[in-house]
C-alpha cells in the first residue's frame, strides 16, 4: 500500500465573474498515491485544469471562492496554508508540466542556466554540484547530448526537446507529485509517445505520484492506471483505466467513447451527445448530465452521489442512478 | 442604436473610477461650451473698449478684461472652439490618414512596407514640437496651417500603430480565407484589417487630443497659430503673461483652461486604454 500523496475531498469552488458566480467544481474527490499515474479526463469546461491549479493554489485569489471540501498534498492542508508556505512547496514537492513548453521556459536564458537556477533554489548544493546535476537530469530525460543542449536557447530546440527540459525542471527537486496538464497535446504523435513513456519511466523510478490531465482518452488509456472522468465540474466516474475506459458505467463516459472514430465502422455514423453544455452559473438541481442523457429516469432529478459499482480491479465509482443496468 | 447602447455601456464602465467621472464631466462641459458658447455670454470676443481696460474679475466680467477691454471669460469660451476644435480635427484627420496607410503597409508588406516604415522612422525621429514649429513656420502663421502642421506631425504615429497591428491581423485565418477567395487588397484592408485594429487607434486618439491642445497653444503662444484678434488660448497667454504681476487674472484663467482641457483628455485617454486592455478589464 503506497503512501497517499494527494487527497482531495468533496472540493467545490466557484469563480465570481461580472456575469455571476460560476460553480466550476462541484464536490469532487480525488486520491493519488506515490508511484501512481492518475488521469483526469474531460472536455473543455469540465474543470480539469482548474483542479490542477487548485492543488497548488495557483488560481486567481480575487475571484476564486472555495465553497466546500479540502485539499491535502503530502499531509499539508493546501486551502488553509498561507501563500508563503505553499510557495515553498511549489516546485519542491509539486512539479508542473503544462501544454506549451515555451511558457515555462525563459526564451532569453540558456537551458543549462535555467536548470541550474531551479536546482539551486530547491536544494542546498554548491555550484559545481548543481552543474553536475544539470547534466544528470538532462540525461535522465533522454536528451542524448546534454552538454550541447545546456548551452542552447529554448528556441533552438524542437517542441519535444523543450518539453523534456520542462519535465527535467519539474522533476529536478524530486517532487512527490507531478502535475502534467495536456503535456503532449501540442506535440507530434511520435514525440508524444516518447514523452508519455518518459513520464511513465520517471514516475516508476522516483516513485512520483502523477496527475495526468488530458482530453485525449487514448493518452489516458495508454499511460494511466486510474482515471477520473470530469463533466461540468463533477466527477461522474472513476476507477481503474481498464474498467472505466473499456467497460464504462456512466452514460457520459459511454457516449464519449462511442463518439470516437478510432474504432467506429467506416460506414456508420458516429454517436453524438445531444444537447449543450450546461450553464455553470445556474447549475440544475439533480444530475448535471441528465438533460443530455439517453438513460434518464425520474430519479435523476436528485443529484446522484459517487457510488461503488463493482469491485473488480479496485474501486470503480459512478455517479449515476442507472449505472450497471 | 447598437452604437448608442455600446457607448453608454462604455461610459458606465469608465465612470466607475472617481477621477474618470470628473474627467468625463469636464469633457462634457467643454463640449457644451464649444457648442453653445456664444449663448453663455453677452459680450463679443472682439469688442474692444478702451475704458474697460484691465478690469479685475467682477460680477460682469467673471475673468476680468484684457488690455483692449475685451471680456476674458468670453474670449476663453470662444477660444474653446478653436483650441479644442482644431485639436479634434487635426487628430481625427491624422488618425484617418495614418491608419489606412499603416494598415495597407502592414498587410502588403515587402518593399512598400519597408519604405513607409523607414520614412515614418525619419519623421518620428524629430521632436514633435520642433517639427510642428518648423512646419507651421514654413506654411505661414495661421489657424489652418497650425492644424495641418499638427496633423502631419501626428500621422506617423498612427501609421506605425496601425501597421504593427496589421502585421498580426494579416496572419489571421479569416484574412487568409478572403485571400483564397480572390478578394482585392483594398477590400481586405478596408473590411478586415482596419475594423480589427480600431480599438488601439481609439485609445491613441484619446491620448493625442490632449497633446494636440497643448501643441496648438504652444504654436499660438509663439505667434504661429491663429492670428490676433482671434481668441486662441495660446495667443492670449502670449500677450497676457506680460501682465502677470499686476493683472494676475489675465493669463491665469486662460492657462487654467488649457490645463483643465489637457488633463481631462489625458485622463480620458488613460481610462480608454484601461478599458480596452484585456488584462485590466478582467
Amino acid at each position: 500500500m503506497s503512501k497517499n500523496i494527494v487527497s482531495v475531498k468533496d472540493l467545490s469552488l466557484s469563480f465570481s465573474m461580472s456575469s455571476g458566480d460560476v460553480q466550476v467544481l462541484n464536490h469532487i474527490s480525488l486520491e493519488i498515491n506515490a508511484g501512481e499515474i492518475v488521469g483526469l479526463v474531460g472536455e473543455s469546461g469540465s474543470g480539469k485544469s482548474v483542479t490542477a491549479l487548485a492543488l497548488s493554489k495557483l488560481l486567481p485569489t480575487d475571484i476564486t471562492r472555495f465553497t466546500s471540501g479540502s485539499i491535502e498534498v503530502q499531509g499539508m492542508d493546501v486551502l488553509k496554508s498561507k501563500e508563503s508556505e505553499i510557495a515553498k512547496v511549489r516546485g519542491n514537492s509539486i512539479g508542473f508540466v503544462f501544454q506549451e513548453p515555451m511558457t515555462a521556459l525563459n526564451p532569453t536564458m540558456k537551458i543549462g542556466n535555467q536548470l541550474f537556477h531551479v536546482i539551486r533554489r530547491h536544494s542546498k548544493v554548491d555550484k559545481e554540484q548543481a552543474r553536475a546535476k544539470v547534466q544528470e537530469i538532462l540525461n535522465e530525460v533522454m536528451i542524448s547530448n546534454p552538454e550541447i543542449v545546456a548551452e542552447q536557447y529554448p528556441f533552438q530546440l524542437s517542441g519535444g526537446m523543450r518539453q523534456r527540459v520542462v519535465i527535467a525542471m519539474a522533476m529536478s527537486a524530486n517532487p512527490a507529485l507531478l502535475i502534467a496538464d495536456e503535456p503532449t497535446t501540442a506535440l507530434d504523435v511520435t514525440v508524444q509517445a516518447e514523452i508519455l513513456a518518459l513520464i511513465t519511466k520517471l514516475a516508476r523510478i522516483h516513485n512520483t505520484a502523477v496527475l495526468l490531465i488530458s482530453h485525449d482518452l487514448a493518452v489516458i488509456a495508454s499511460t494511466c492506471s486510474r482515471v477520473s472522468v470530469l463533466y461540468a465540474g463533477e466527477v461522474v466516474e472513476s476507477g481503474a483505466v481498464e474498467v472505466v475506459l473499456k467497460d464504462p458505467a456512466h452514460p457520459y463516459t459511454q457516449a464519449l467513447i462511442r463518439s470516437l472514430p478510432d474504432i467506429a465502422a467506416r460506414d456508420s455514423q458516429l454517436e453524438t451527445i445531444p444537447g449543450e453544455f450546461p450553464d455553470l452559473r445556474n447549475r440544475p438541481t439533480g444530475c448535471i448530465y441528465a438533460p443530455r442523457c439517453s438513460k434518464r429516469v425520474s430519479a435523476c432529478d436528485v443529484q446522484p452521489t459517487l457510488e461503488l459499482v463493482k469491485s473488480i480491479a479496485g474501486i470503480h465509482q459512478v455517479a449515476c442512478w442507472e449505472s450497471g443496468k | 442604436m447598437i452604437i448608442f447602447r455600446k457607448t453608454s455601456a462604455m461610459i458606465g464602465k469608465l465612470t466607475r473610477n472617481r477621477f474618470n467621472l470628473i474627467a468625463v464631466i469636464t469633457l462634457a462641459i467643454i463640449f457644451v461650451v464649444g457648442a453653445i458658447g456664444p449663448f453663455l455670454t453677452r459680450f463679443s470676443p472682439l469688442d474692444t473698449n478702451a475704458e474697460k481696460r484691465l478690469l479685475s474679475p467682477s460680477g460682469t466680467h467673471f475673468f476680468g478684461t484684457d488690455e483692449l477691454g475685451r471680456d476674458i471669460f468670453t474670449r476663453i469660451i470662444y477660444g474653446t472652439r478653436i483650441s479644442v476644435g482644431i485639436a479634434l480635427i487635426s487628430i481625427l484627420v491624422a488618425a484617418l490618414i495614418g491608419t489606412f496607410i499603416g494598415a495597407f503597409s502592414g498587410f502588403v508588406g515587402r518593399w512598400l512596407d519597408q519604405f513607409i516604415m523607414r520614412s515614418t522612422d525619419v519623421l518620428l525621429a524629430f521632436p514633435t514640437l520642433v517639427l510642428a514649429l518648423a512646419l507651421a513656420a514654413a506654411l505661414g502663421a495661421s489657424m489652418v496651417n497650425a492644424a495641418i502642421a499638427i496633423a502631419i506631425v501626428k500621422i506617423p504615429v498612427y501609421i506605425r500603430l496601425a501597421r504593427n497591428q496589421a502585421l498580426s491581423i494579416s496572419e489571421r485565418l479569416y484574412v487568409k480565407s478572403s485571400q483564397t477567395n480572390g478578394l482585392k487588397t483594398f477590400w481586405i484592408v478596408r473590411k478586415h484589417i482596419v475594423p480589427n485594429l480600431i480599438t488601439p487607434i481609439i485609445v491613441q486618439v484619446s491620448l493625442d487630443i490632449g497633446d494636440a491642445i497643448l501643441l496648438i497653444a504652444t504654436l499660438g503662444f509663439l505667434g504661429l497659430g491663429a492670428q490676433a484678434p482671434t481668441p486662441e488660448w495660446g495667443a492670449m497667454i502670449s500677450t497676457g503673461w506680460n501682465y502677470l504681476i499686476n493683472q494676475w487674472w489675465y493669463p491665469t484663467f486662460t492657462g487654467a483652461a488649457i490645463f483643465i482641457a489637457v488633463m481631462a483628455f489625458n485622463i480620458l485617454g488613460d481610462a480608454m486604454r484601461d478599458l480596452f486592455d484585456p488584462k485590466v478589464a478582467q
Partner: protein
Amino acid sequence: MSLLEVTNLHKTFRLKTKGKVSENHAVSDVSFSINQGEVFGLVGESGSGKTTIANILMQLESSDSGTIFFEGKEMNTFPYGDVQIVFQDPRSSLDPRMSIRQIISEPTQRLIAKRRNELASEERLVEIMQSVGLRPEHLDRKPHQFSGGQRQRIAIARALITKPKLVVLDEPTSALDISVQAQVINLLKKLQRDNGLTYLFISHNMGVVKYLCDRVGVLNKGVLVEVGTNAEIFSAATHEYTKKLLASVPTMHGRLL
C-alpha cells in the same frame, strides 16, 4: 475520374540566419491524385509539408515547380469557387467584427452580380445554415456568440457557398472537443454525400483519418513516403515511417489496427 492531380511539386524556403542561408525543403517532389467523390487523407507530423501543400493549392503560396491538373486540364489557378478551404482554428478563421451572413457570403464577392445573387441569396443562406445544423435566425449574430463547434460549422458553410468541387480541410477537428468532433465529422460526411463533394483531408489524427478517408498519403519532412487505400495504409503499411507513425498512436483498446 481524377479531379485533382499534383505532379512533382516542389517548394523550398530559404532562411537567412546569421549570414548563412539555410534551405528548408518543405515539399519535395510530391505527386498524388484525388478522384472525384473521394476523401483523400494527407497525414504527417509538423514540418511534413502538409500545410504548405494546402497553401499552394489555395494559392496562398507559390510552388517552385510542379504541375497541377484540375479536371484533367493543367492549370495555374482553379476556376473561381471550385476549390475551398476549411481551416483548423475556429477562433481565428472568422472575422470577429462581421456578422455570420457577411462571413458566409464573402466568397461570392468577386463574382458578377447575377451569379452572386444566385449563390448568396437569402434562401440559399438559410438553406446552407440549415444544412450545417445552425439556425437561420442567427445569421446576423457575430462569431463570439457561437461555440467552437458551431464556428467550425460556419466555416464549413462559408466553404460551401460557391458550390465547390474540392474542399481542402486543414485539421478541421483538431481544436474541438471529442463530442463536438463527432458532430462535425458526421456533418462532413453527410455534406459530402449530399453535395457530391471531394475532400482533401489533412490531419495528424490517425483515428479520424482511418474513419473518414478512402485513400491516404503519408508525408515525412516534405516527402510523400507512401500512398494507398485505407486498408493498405492501416492494415498493410509498407514504409518504415508509416509503420512508426501508426505504432506511436496511443490506443484505447490495444493497437489501432
